[in-house]
C-alpha cells in the first residue's frame, strides 16, 4: 500500500496546479464564465498541451496512458480552481466510452483538443435512473429527448443512448449539428443543454447492449467528481479558516470563538473523510467485478455528497453575509459542491442503492 505519488504523478500535479494558479484566478474564472461559450478555449488548448485531454488513453491513441489516480489528480486541481471546461464530458465520459468501443481514431482528436463530445443519456423523465431510456433507435436513426446534457451545447459529437427494437439500451455516436439543442448555464456556472433528436442519423454504433458500459463510465465519472469535490471542499475549508483568522468582531478574530473553531474542525473532518472516499473510489473505479465496484462508488458518492453539503453550508454560515455574495469565491464553491452532490444522484439516492445491494461489509 502506497499513498505517495510517483514522480510522474507529482510532476503532473505540479504542472496542472501551476497552470491553474497562473491562468485560473477567480477573476479570470468569472470572465471565462461570462464569455459566450462559458469556458475557455485557450485553457482547453493548454490542457491538451499538458497531455490532460489524453490522460486516460494509451500512447498509441495519442494519450499518456494514465489511470484513475491521474484523473483524480487533475480533477482535484479543477475542483480547487472551479474550472469550467468540458473535461468530464469529453475526456472522462465520452473518452471512456470511445476507448472501449473501438473508436480509436477519434481519441487522438480528443487528446489534441480538436474534438468536443457530450454524453447525451439523461432524459426528461429519467431522474437518476440510468436504465430509464425512452429515446428510440431504428434503422440507424435516433429519435428522442435528452435532458441536462453536460456541455451539450459546445459538443461537436454526441454519445447518445437509445433503445432498439429488442429493448436493448445501446450507445450511438451522432453529429451534434444534426440535433436541436438549447444550451444554458447551470446553477454553478457550467453549461448544459436540452437536446432533441428527430431521426438523427447514427454515425457509429458504439454498443448495442450498452448498459454495462454506461454503468462503468458513470462510475468513473463519479470517482472523478469525487476528486473534484475534494478539491473544492479543501479550498473552501481553507478559505473559511482564513476568514476566521482575519474577520474581527467584538474586538477579536472570530476564529477565537470556540463554537466556530469546533465547527471549522468538523469541516476539516468532513473534508478528510471525503478525501479518503475519493481515494477509495479511485482505487475501485477500475474494479472488474461490477457489483463490488458499484457498491464502492455508491459509498463514495454518499460520503462525498454529505461532506460537500456540510462543508458548503457551514462555510456560508461561518462567512456570514459575505459568503452569500456573487463576487466572493466561497459561494461559488458552495454552488458547485451542491451540484456535484446532485449529479448522477444525491447522497441519499446512493445510500439507498448501497443498502439494497447489501452494504459494504459482510
Amino acid at each position, binding site marked *: 500500500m502506497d499513498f505517495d505519488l510517483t514522480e510522474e504523478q507529482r510532476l503532473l500535479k505540479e504542472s496542472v496546479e501551476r497552470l491553474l494558479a497562473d491562468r485560473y484566478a477567480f477573476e479570470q474564472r468569472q470572465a471565462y464564465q461570462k464569455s459566450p461559450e462559458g469556458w475557455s478555449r485557450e485553457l482547453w488548448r493548454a490542457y491538451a498541451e499538458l497531455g490532460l485531454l489524453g490522460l486516460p488513453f494509451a500512447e498509441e491513441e495519442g494519450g499518456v496512458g494514465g489511470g484513475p489516480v491521474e484523473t483524480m489528480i487533475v480533477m482535484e486541481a479543477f475542483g480547487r480552481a472551479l474550472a469550467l471546461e468540458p473535461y468530464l464530458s469529453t475526456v472522462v465520459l465520452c473518452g471512456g466510452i470511445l476507448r472501449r468501443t473501438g473508436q480509436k481514431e477519434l481519441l487522438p482528436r480528443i487528446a489534441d483538443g480538436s474534438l468536443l463530445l457530450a454524453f447525451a443519456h439523461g432524459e426528461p423523465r429519467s431522474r437518476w435512473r440510468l436504465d430509464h431510456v425512452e429515446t428510440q433507435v431504428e434503422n440507424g436513426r435516433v429519435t428522442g429527448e435528452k435532458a441536462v446534457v453536460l456541455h451539450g451545447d459546445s459538443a461537436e459529437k454526441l454519445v447518445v443512448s437509445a433503445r432498439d427494437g429488442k429493448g436493448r439500451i445501446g450507445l450511438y455516436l451522432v453529429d451534434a449539428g444534426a440535433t436541436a439543442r438549447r444550451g444554458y448555464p447551470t446553477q454553478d456556472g457550467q453549461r448544459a443543454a436540452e437536446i432533441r433528436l428527430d431521426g438523427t442519423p447514427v454515425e457509429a454504433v458504439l454498443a448495442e447492449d450498452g448498459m454495462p458500459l454506461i454503468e462503468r463510465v458513470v462510475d468513473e465519472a463519479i470517482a472523478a467528481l469525487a476528486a473534484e469535490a475534494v478539491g473544492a471542499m479543501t479550498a473552501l475549508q481553507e478559505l473559511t479558516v482564513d476568514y476566521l483568522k482575519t474577520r474581527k468582531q467584538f474586538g477579536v478574530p472570530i476564529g477565537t470563538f470556540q463554537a466556530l473553531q469546533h465547527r471549522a474542525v468538523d469541516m476539516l473532518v468532513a473534508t478528510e473523510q471525503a478525501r479518503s472516499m475519493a481515494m477509495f473510489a479511485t482505487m475501485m473505479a477500475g474494479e472488474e467485478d461490477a457489483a463490488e465496484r458499484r457498491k464502492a462508488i455508491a459509498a463514495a458518492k454518499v460520503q462525498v455528497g454529505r461532506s460537500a453539503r456540510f462543508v458548503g453550508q457551514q462555510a456560508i454560515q461561518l462567512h456570514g453575509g459575505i459568503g452569500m455574495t456573487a*463576487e466572493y469565491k466561497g459561494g461559488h464553491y458552495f454552488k458547485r459542491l451542491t451540484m456535484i452532490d446532485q449529479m448522477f444522484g444525491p447522497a441519499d439516492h446512493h445510500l439507498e442503492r448501497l443498502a439494497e445491494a447489501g452494504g459494504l461489509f459482510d
Partner: protein
Amino acid sequence: MDLRFTPEEIAFRDEVRAFFRDNVPAKTREKLIAGRPLDKDDIVTWQRILNKRGWAVPNWPVEWGGQNWSPVQRYIFDEEMQLAPAPQPLPFGVSMVGPVIIAFGNEQQKKRFLPRIANLDDWWCQGFSEPGAGSDLASLKTRAERKGDRYIVNGQKTWTTLAQYADWIFCLCRTDPAAKKQEGISFLLIDMKTPGITVRPIVTIDGGREVNEVFFDDVEVPVENLVGEENKGWTYAKFLLGNERTGIARVGLSKQRLRRVKALAREVGLMDDPRFREKVAAVEVELKALEMTQLRVVAAERHRKDKKPDPFSSILKIKGSEIQQATTELALEVAGPYAMPYVPPQEGRNEPPIGPEWAAPLAPTYFNWRKVSIYGGSNEIQRNIIAKAILGL
C-alpha cells in the same frame, strides 16, 4: 389548560382565511407558490389591500390603525397569511421603524410617518449593518456630525434589503465617537433622495439583487429626523431587534412549502420512496413541535410584565430557520436533474421553461435561504443569547 383554539379564535381564523383567499391577487399568489420573486408593484398593491381592510398594522396601537388583537389572534393572522400564501408585509416599516417611532418618536414624527408606512406610501429600508459590524453591530462606524440644525452623515451601510425601492432609510449612526461602544449611537430617519446617497446592488449567489450597499457622503439630515434622544439609539435598536425575532419562526410559510414539496414529489413519483417520505415526515414533526413552541411563547405573552423580548424567541429563530432551510433542501431533491439549469428570473418569460417550470427557482431558493440562519442575529448569536439569558451561563 386547553390547547385547542376557542370557538371565537376559530371564527377569527375563518374570517382571516376567507379574506386572504378572496383578496390576494392571483399573480402574486402564483409567484409566492412557485418561489419566484415579487416585484415592487405586487408588494405595494397587497399592502394597500390590507390597509383598506384595516389590517395593515394590526400590532400598532389602535389610534394609529392597530387592532388590539390578542397574541393568539396575531399568531393566527400571521399563520394564515403565510398559508394562503399572501405576501408578508415588509417588516422595515410595519414591524421595525413603525414601532420605534410609536415608542420613542415625537408626535410630529408619528403624524408624518405612521400613516404613510401603513399604506406603503413610503418604502423603508434598514441601515444597521456595516462591512465591519455584523454580529458585533455596536461596532458600527457611520458618523453623524451635528452642524446647527442638521446632521452630516458619512459612512457605509450594507445588506440593505430592497434599498433600490426605498424612499426612506432608518439608520444607526455614531453621534459621539468618544463614548463607549453602545453609547454614542443615534437613530436617524433619512430621506433616500437626499444628495450624497449612493445605492450599489450586491448580487447574491442565487443571482438575486435584493440586498445593497448604501454609501453616505456628506448627507445632510435635518435634526427633526432624530428619533428619541441623541446617543440613545442603541436602546431603540435593541427594542427593534427583539421585535424582529418573534415573527421569524415562519411556521405557516414552512407548512405551505412542505405541502408544495409533497405535491411536487407526488408528481415525480418520489413520495413512493419510503426514504424521501420519511425525510419529509421528520421535518413535519419538527415543524409541528415548533408550532406548539411558538404558541406557548405567544400564550405566555400576556403574563410578561416588561416589554422586553422573550429570550425564548431565540429558540423560534434557531428552529424556524433550520426548518425553512430543510424545506428548501427537500425541494431541491424533488427537482432532480432539473435543479441544475439556471434560468434568470427576470428574462425568459416568453421562452418555454427548461424542464418543469416549477423546478427553476428551487436551487436558487436553497442558496438564498442560507441567509435565514445568518441575518437577524445569526444562529450562533441566538445561542449566545439563550446561554446567557435562559441558562445563566
